[in-house]
Each structure stands twice: as structure tokens, then as C-alpha cells.
């Protein structure tokens, strides 16, 4: 494979922290209860808000009786479409307006009598206590005129239409060769239908907002993973300049994509604060999260594969139907991974989308790939059964040298190595290839594999780095900490770049006053920020050198000759500490910034994307035990071997990769959002009935990675937040197939499907 080698900007000193398993810098805050989340900021005049949710899927509010709610002692106000101050309408979706992409729907809440989904907020109660607000909300009595609604994906999917071209967020359909003809001619083939249900993010922190207006200045504590977008969106909706909005989100209790946009709770908290003149906290109930924050679309997918007798693929057809809402939503790029995984001359990929009268869908951990790989990697496994071939062997036999659809190079692709290492470490050779013969006592044992794939993106990030005369470093950027260890990773990088101890670095983040960051979405944050931290530190070293006083051993040196270590710059022949240099120069600090322009960034991105496909990949190994009496499935072992570029923090990286696998196990075995086919209402809006995995469902998950830097990325680094959920559900399904002989094509694989 040939690649133009772009020298990664790299540390001038010896790497001391990058790659190490250092403790999280916020570990003590999180284990002592000191970390404060969005619903935990006290204000003297704080009032609490609760939402009233529509109970019909579509129609009009003919009347809304708030009398009973208003007389409850402690109620401050009840806002409905009849009395609420107007917000500006949601901006029209445009790629040039991030505030519009932040928009979670086109609905103008509390402005009209229209109801667009079952669960839509139709009133907000503001009260002195959270109990009063909730109780009074239960007394608000809307009456409706119902209109016919299309809510059932299973019946409506036949009305799906091909996805509109030109959505830059999507890797759309693709055609290469003649897949239909090749499939018909193939000596061995499989042609399977799959389905996946709606999934919800279910971050354990329900979305919460505390909104405080001071004149036209708004302070917001918001559980967002996307400060920049949300601020833009709020500025547009409330007609104030962006700079008069301050969003503070230092700690966010999980996101997984669900906190990436401006959902109605945030808007209505701000609206209620404006209407009542009070500081208002709106912490959604768990049910409220289900009713107002979209989840992952359900899908049906067809995967047909043709191969010759040696297992060389001749055709791939992968089509999908997913849904959005009539009031918005993002079409799910279900077949993205299928563009890139197998060397095959004939490819047909396409998406269809149906609009329903439901809450909008949204991105959730690895949108597209998470569910797309379930179908594709299950089908590959099934083809291996047809061929009587080892499923790893089948994959390796079709591993492409260049990107199959586009013909571009991969910047890095080490799936072969991942499978080889994984097979060894997992004990794949002990797998009896026959289905249903491996046993542990009465349990049936099965082993399965699947490939993980997630495209890698990054965004421009503005950072400042400040070096104090005391040798301490402050990195400032409006980044988000939703669990990935943001501050820790950037501190590690900055410490290495400047050659200072980790303890001397503080990362300031989670505040819109800081230089513009990037949403914690699309696995983009860490790598994007790292690029700017590297660039800023390079500038900072130069600036320090320029200050070197007369007589300094650094004087007259070129920066390339120096090493940043031991709290200063050093040359073979001697060096000086930052403190010495700054003190001598009479400076108490030095501050530099790196602020990439959007235009330059876009130009580079476009150039890069014409040359390369950048992605993280992996090999997932799963072992299950299936109870032959009851069909219960337990995941008993797991290994994921990933090709991710450089790993910044061995410990937090492993945790994040495990987290994706845990969510993938949930996807595979127990999770699904149940939407009533008559009413469009979510019927399991609770953590008791939506079954995310618990401790007892999760075995030790073994994580391994190749740690080869991607030569085209700063520090050789990719984002890693999403790749590990991809392929996970297929690995489970393939293991179940091995244990039982049954191919389950409809997620989740609940026990009734195995009886």
C-alpha cells in the first residue's frame, strides 16, 4: 500500500505520558461527589420546570385547561401555546449553519396548537419545587382533535423513498459493476433480510438544563456534548448574540450522541426562565428523555452476497430502510461500512427513508455503522457457513488493498494483523467449526467474530496554551467531558509537548467562553483538539525560545535542535527552565493560540478525502453460552483487537472501547424501544423495561490494540469513541449461530427467538 508520508507533528521530547495508563485528572472529583452536573447548580431564586407531554401522535390542541395546575400551591406559571412568549422558528436545515444542524426538529414549541408526535411537550409548568412542578404538570388537561398519523415503521416502511442525494453528512448509495448480475451468476450466495429496532442512548444522567437570564445575557448549565452548536442554536431561537450566551458544561453524565443537539428541554428551560424572570431548572424525567430526545432509527436491511467456490466475493448488495420524522431527523447512513470492508468487483448500496409522525431520530454511537455492520457481518458469517469456510479466513481472503468503491488508499489498514493477533489470543483454533457441539455442562457454547469499522473525521479546534513563569501550563478550549477523559488526554499531550510534569498542566474546558472547541460527536473531539494542542505547543516553544535572554545556552539555537523536557528547553550543551526564561524576560506568562480557519480546514479535508480513506477498524471476538432449555444467552468471553492509530491513554482508551462493546452487547441481546403501532407512543420509557446491560450481563472484556500511528494524522491519532460498538452485535449473533445453529436476523436476540 502506498501512502504519501506526511510527517506527523510530533513531540520534540521523549514521550512520557502519551500511551501511558495515567489516572484521570478528574478522578477524585468523580469519586467523591464533588463533580457537579447540570441540574446541581443552586441559585437563590431557582424555580423548577416540568413538561406536559402530548398523548396523541398528530393533531391539534383544541383546548388546554391549566386551571387545576395553576391553583396548586407553589406553582409559578403554566406556559402553553396560548400564553408562552414566542421563540424564533427553528432555522432551516443548512450545512452552512451549525445552529440549524443543532436543531433537533422543525417544531416551534408552545407557539402553535399543532402536535407532531406522541410525547411532544405541549406545556411547561414552573413551580417552587420539583415535586410541585411535576404534580401540577399532571393536572394540565389538553383536549385534542386527532389527525391520522403514520407511526408504525413495520407497516410504513413500504412507503420509503430513496434517500435524497447530496447530504454531505452521509456516505450515500454506491454502484460499481453489476451487482445483480454477479449475484445471480455466483456459485455460492446468501440473500438475507435483517431488522434492528429503535435504540435509545439512555445516558444515566437525564438531560438537564439550568437557565438564568440577566437582561439579555443568558447563563446555561446544560448537559450537552455540543456547546458550540447549542449556543448558536439558542442565539438564533432567542434573538440574542451568541456572545451573550454562556454555556457551562464541565461534567456531562454520558451522551452517546443523545446530547449532541438542542432538544426541547433545553429550549423550554430557557423559554421558561425568560417568561418567569426566574432561574429555571428543567431536569427531564427518564420518561421525558424518551419522549423528547430522539433515539437511533429502526432499520430493515437486505444483504446479498455472491462468492466463488473459493470464497472470493463477487457481489455485495446492501440496501436499507430507516426512518426520520416528518418534523426532522437525520437519515441514517446504514451502509457506510459496506463501502469499505470487502474487495468485491460488483457493489450495490442504497438507502431508503420513510418519514413518520414520531419524534425525530438522531445520531447515536456510530450512526450507520453500528447497525449496518450487524447486517453485513452477519451475512458474511452466513456465507462462511454456506462455503464451509472459517469466517476469519473468508474475511482475510476478501481484505481489500484499496478502498473497494472509490479506489482510494487507506491511510492505514491492519485488519489482517488484528485478526491474526485476536485469533491467537482468543484461542480461535479451539473452536469446533460444527454448530451446536461445543458444550460447557448443559450450556451450548458458541464463538463468533465480526469486523468493526468506523470512519475517522476531525474538525477545526481553537485552543490557547498559557505557560506561567511558575512553569505551569493551562490549555483552554471549550471541549466536553462526557466520560472519555478529555482533560486527561489533552493534558498528557501538552505535558509531553512542553516537557513538563502532568501535574503542571491544567485543561480548562466545558465553558463556551473558552476558545471554540468541537462537539463530542463522531469520535472527533480528541484527535481534533490534539492537533491544535500540538500546533499551539509548537508555537509556544518558539515563543519561549525567542525570549531566551543573552547568555542563555539557548540563545541562537534553532527550535529543531532543542528538546522540551524537565520543565524547559534543552540542548545538548545545556538548557534553561521555562521559569528561568520567563523570569529573566520579566514575563509572568506567555500565551499562544492556535486558531485554524474553517476555510483552510475545509480545503485540507476535501483534499485529504480525495486521496484517502481514514478509518479505525477492529476484529471482535465473542463467546456465548446458550441455555438449551430456555434460550437465554450469556456472553461469556470477549476480545476486541483494534487498529486505532496512536492511543493516548491506555486506561481510558480501553474503557471507552469496552463501553462501546457493552452497548453493542445490549444492542444484540436486550435493548429495544417499543413504540405502540397504534399511538406512536413509547411504551417502555424506563430503565426497568428498556434493558440496558447490567453488571451480570458483562464478562471481562479483553482489549488489545495495535497502537500503530496513522501517518496522516497529528500524533498518529484517531478518535476511538465509536468503533467498538460496530461489529459487536454481529459478533454476538455469529456466536449464537455457532452455538445453536440458528441465525437470528432480527435484533435483539431475545430468548423467544431461540426456543
Amino acid at each position: 500500500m502506498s501512502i504519501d508520508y506526511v510527517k506527523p507533528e510530533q513531540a520534540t521530547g521523549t514521550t512520557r505520558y502519551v500511551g501511558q495508563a495515567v489516572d484521570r485528572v478528574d478522578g477524585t472529583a468523580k469519586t467523591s461527589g464533588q463533580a457537579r452536573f447540570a441540574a446541581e447548580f443552586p441559585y437563590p431564586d431557582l424555580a423548577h420546570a416540568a413538561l406536559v407531554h402530548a398523548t396523541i401522535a398528530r393533531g391539534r390542541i383544541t383546548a388546554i385547561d391549566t386551571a387545576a395546575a395553576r391553583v396548586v400551591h407553589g406553582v409559578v406559571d403554566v406556559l402553553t401555546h396560548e400564553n408562552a412568549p414566542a421563540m424564533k422558528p427553528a432555522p432551516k436545515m443548512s450545512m452552512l449553519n451549525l445552529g440549524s444542524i443543532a436543531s433537533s426538529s422543525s417544531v416551534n414549541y408552545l407557539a402553535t396548537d399543532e402536535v407532531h408526535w406522541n410525547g411532544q411537550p405541549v406545556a411547561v409548568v414552573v413551580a417552587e419545587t420539583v415535586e410541585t412542578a411535576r404534580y401540577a404538570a399532571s393536572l394540565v388537561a389538553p383536549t385534542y382533535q386527532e389527525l391520522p398519523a403514520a407511526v408504525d415503521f413495520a407497516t410504513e416502511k413500504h412507503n420509503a423513498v430513496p434517500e435524497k442525494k447530496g447530504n454531505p453528512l452521509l456516505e450515500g448509495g454506491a454502484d460499481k459493476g453489476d451487482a445483480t448480475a454477479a449475484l445471480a451468476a455466483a456459485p455460492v450466495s446468501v440473500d438475507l433480510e435483517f431488522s434492528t429496532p429503535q435504540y435509545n442512548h439512555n445516558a444515566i444522567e437525564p438531560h438537564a438544563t439550568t437557565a438564568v437570564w440577566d437582561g439579555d445575557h443568558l447563563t446555561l448549565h446544560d448537559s450537552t456534548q455540543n456547546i458550540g452548536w447549542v449556543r448558536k442554536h439558542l442565539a438564533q431561537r432567542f434573538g440574542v448574540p451568541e456572545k451573550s450566551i454562556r454555556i457551562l458544561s464541565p461534567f456531562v453524565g454520558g451522551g452517546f450522541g443523545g446530547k449532541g443537539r438542542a432538544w426541547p428541554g433545553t429550549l423550554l428551560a430557557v423559554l421558561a426562565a425568560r417568561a418567569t424572570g426566574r432561574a429555571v431548572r428543567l431536569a427531564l424525567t427518564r420518561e421525558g428523555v424518551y419522549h423528547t430526545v430522539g433515539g437511533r432509527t429502526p432499520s430493515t436491511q437486505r444483504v446479498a452476497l455472491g462468492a466463488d467456490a473459493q470464497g472470493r466475493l463477487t457481489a455485495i448488495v446492501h440496501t436499507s430502510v430507516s426512518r426520520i420524522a416528518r418534523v426532522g431527523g437525520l437519515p441514517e447512513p446504514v451502509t457506510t461500512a459496506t463501502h469499505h470492508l470487502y474487495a468485491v468487483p460488483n457493489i450495490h448500496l442504497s438507502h431508503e427513508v420513510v418519514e413518520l409522525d414520531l419524534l425525530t431520530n438522531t445520531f447515536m454511537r456510530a450512526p450507520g455503522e453500528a447497525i449496518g455492520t450487524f447486517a453485513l457481518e452477519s451475512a458474511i458469517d452466513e456465507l462462511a457457513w454456506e462455503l464451509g469456510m472459517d469466517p476469519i479466513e473468508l474475511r482475510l481472503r476478501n481484505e481489500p488493498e484499496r478502498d473497494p468503491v472509490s479506489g482510494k488508499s487507506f491511510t492505514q489498514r491492519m485488519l489482517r494483523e488484528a485478526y491474526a493477533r485476536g485469533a491467537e489470543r482468543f484461542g480461535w483454533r479451539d473452536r469446533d467449526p460444527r454448530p451446536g457441539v461445543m458444550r460447557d455442562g448443559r450450556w451450548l457454547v458458541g464463538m463468533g467474530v465480526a469486523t468493526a469499522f468506523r470512519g475517522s473525521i476531525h474538525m477545526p479546534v481553537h485552543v490557547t496554551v498559557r505557560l506561567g513563569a511558575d512553569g505551569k501550563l493551562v490549555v483552554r478550549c471549550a471541549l466536553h467531558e462526557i466520560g472519555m477523559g478529555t482533560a486527561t488526554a489533552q493534558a498528557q499531550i501538552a505535558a509531553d509537548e512542553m516537557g513538563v510534569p502532568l501535574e503542571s498542566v491544567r485543561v480548562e474546558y466545558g465553558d463556551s467562553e473558552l476558545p471554540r472547541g468541537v462537539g463530542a460527536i463522531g469520535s472527533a473531539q480528541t484527535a481534533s483538539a490534539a492537533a491544535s494542542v500540538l500546533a499551539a505547543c509548537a508555537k509556544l516553544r518558539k515563543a519561549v525560545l525567542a525570549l531566551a535572554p543573552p547568555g542563555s545556552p539557548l540563545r541562537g539555537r534553532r527550535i529543531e535542535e532543542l528538546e522540551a523536557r524537565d520543565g524547559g528547553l534543552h540542548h545538548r550543551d545545556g538548557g534553561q527552565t521555562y521559569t528561568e526564561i520567563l523570569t529573566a524576560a520579566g514575563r509572568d506568562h506567555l500565551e499562544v493560540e492556535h486558531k485554524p480557519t474553517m476555510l483552510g480546514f475545509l480545503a485540507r479535508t476535501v483534499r485529504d478525502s480525495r486521496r484517502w480513506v481514514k478509518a479505525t477498524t477492529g476484529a471482535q471476538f465473542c463467546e456465548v453460552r446458550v441455555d438449551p432449555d430456555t434460550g437465554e444467552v450469556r456472553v461469556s468471553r470477549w476480545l476486541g483487537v483494534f487498529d486505532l492509530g496512536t492511543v493516548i491513554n491506555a486506561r481510558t482508551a480501553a474503557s471507552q472501547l469496552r463501553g462501546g462493546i457493552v452497548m453493542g452487547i445490549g444492542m444484540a441481546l436486550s435493548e429495544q424501544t417499543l413504540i405502540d403501532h397504534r399511538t406512536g407512543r413509547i411504551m417502555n420509557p424506563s430503565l426497568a423495561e428498556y434493558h440496558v446491560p447490567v453488571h451480570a450481563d458483562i464478562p471481562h472484556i479483553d482489549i488489545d490494540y495495535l497502537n500503530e500511528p496513522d501517518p496522516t494524522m497529528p500524533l498518529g491519532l484517531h478518535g476511538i469513541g465509536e468503533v467498538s460498538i460496530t461489529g459487536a452485535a454481529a459478533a454476538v449473533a455469529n456466536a449464537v449461530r455457532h452455538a445453536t445453529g440458528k441465525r437470528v436476523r432480527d435484533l435483539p436476540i431475545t430468548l423467544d427467538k431461540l426456543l
Partner: protein
Amino acid sequence: MRPFAYVKPVDVETAVLAAAKPGAKFLGGGTNLVDLMREGIERPDTVVDVTGLPFDTVDELPGGGLRIGAMVRNSALAADPRVRARYPVLSQALLCGASGQLRNMATVGGNLLQRTRCPYFYDTAAACNKREPGSGCDALDGFNRGCAILGVSESCIATHPSDMCVALAALDAVVEVRGADGTRRIPLTDFHRLPGDTPEIETTLAPGDLVTAVELPPVAAGSRYRKVRDRASYAFALVSVAAALRVSDGIVTEVRLALGGVAPKPWRAREAERLLVGGPADEASFRRAAEAELAAATLRPDNAFKVALAASTVVATLRMLSTEGASR
């Protein structure tokens, strides 16, 4: 939740008196009632906290049985060495329910009287005869994967969600109740009612009746509990089986069998028991008996699998008891 008055009597007379007022409701650990009040499903005027009453011990009965106070916490009962030794099925059933934290809160009385987890019961926007008599039953043509297959009616197909009660049903437990007219004793299998046309009436208790204790007669047979659910822990049963079995020379001499997750009440499988006693303790007769018990099942599209699941779970549980003998 709707405002209410709170009282915490320390003697049983005051408690019964306080609860005799219309709109009063007893409060045990609160793990079900508080949830339902917050959802607006239960709307009591007065909440009578019974956790101060002196029924929080497990005592020996003459003849080898046990008397369990109604305020004994689920965790304490599960850990009681006498329960573990003599009624392992009960200890196991309790330990399969809810979570460590919830078991520390939940009382025996509250567990007996916990209400269904039917999703339409929980959503005040849905039609539900149990919550709103006469409003209809949205579960019939809705999500009914968790619903009952035995003892149901056209007005309600909800299950009773308790694990503990399934074990109690198998053990011939008797519930002691204190009402306005004094103390009554109700066999557990008569305690809960089938829905018929009045699914809102779930037990044979009169308003204001206080559960004070549960009595267990001695049981000689080895017993165990098997619960099947959608995740490995912290989920309600799809199907569960409480069984006690004694085999002598390959012949079943005593059997007790109750099913959970399949009926509006803990389901004592008398028909299966009848077929089993005196017959061979083998897989074929276990299956025949289970299938006979389930022959009367009324199925909905989503819950039809429960017939096969219940049958194999019965077989698996009896197989285990017959091969391992004791509880484990």
C-alpha cells in the same frame, strides 16, 4: 405526586383504624407505592407507614414451620438461615427479585401487594381496565410479550410480577390479615384474584386490611427457584418456576410446583402436580405434566412463546431437583 397526609402508627390497632378511612393506603418499603404515586397511578389521601409496626421478625412455629412478619425486609428474609435451610426456594426467589438496594427496602407485605408491570398500566395515557375500570385494555393488541397466558380474561391479561409470591404459592403459605373485624388467615393461593371482569380488584383483602404475617408449614422436599428473564439480573420474570420435589426409587412421592410470569397471580400448577405424583421422575413425565398444565393457555401474538418456555423451565427445574436432590 398528589399531596397526601402521612402517619406512622406504632401499634396495629391505630394502623388499621387509620387505614379504614377511604383513600388510605399502607406504605411498606415504598418501592412500588412511591413509584406509582409519582406516576399518578396511585393517588392516596393518607399514607399509613407500617414499618414502625412490630412485625419485623421471623419466628419458629410449633411443628417446624415459620412465621414471617409482614414488615420483614426481603433481604433479611432471604438471608435468614432457617429460610435458606428449609425453604431454599423462597430465599432464591427473593434473591432473584429486583436489586440489593430494593430488597433492603421492600417488605414482605409490600411484595405480596405489588402491582403489575404491564406497560399500559404504567402509562396514564393508555386504556387500562385495571387502572381505570371500563377504559379498555390496550395490552390485548399492543405489547403483550410480558403478559399472562393462564387465568386471563378479556378485560385484563397482566401478570403478577412478584418472585417471592411464586415460592410462597408452592410452599402452601398462609397470609395472616388484620382487618376491622379482627384477624383472618388466607391461603396464599386464594389471596390474589384472577381478573375476570374486575381486574382492579387484585386480592381478597377488604379495604383497610393489614397483612401482618405469612406462615409457612414445614416442607420436607428439596426445593429451588428458576427465573428466566431478558437480562441476567435486575429484570422481571418472563417465566419463573418454584418447585419442590421428593423422589423415592425413581418415583415422585411429593411435588409442589408454581409458575410466575404466566398468570395474573402466582400460579400453583395443581394439574401438573396431580399428574406427577406416583409417576416416574423422568424428563418425559415432567414435560407431559407441564404441557397439561399449560394446555388451557390463552395466547396473544407476542406471548405465545411462554408456553414452550414455561414447559422447558419446569422440566429443567424438576430435572435439576431430581438429579441434584437438594436445593443446589
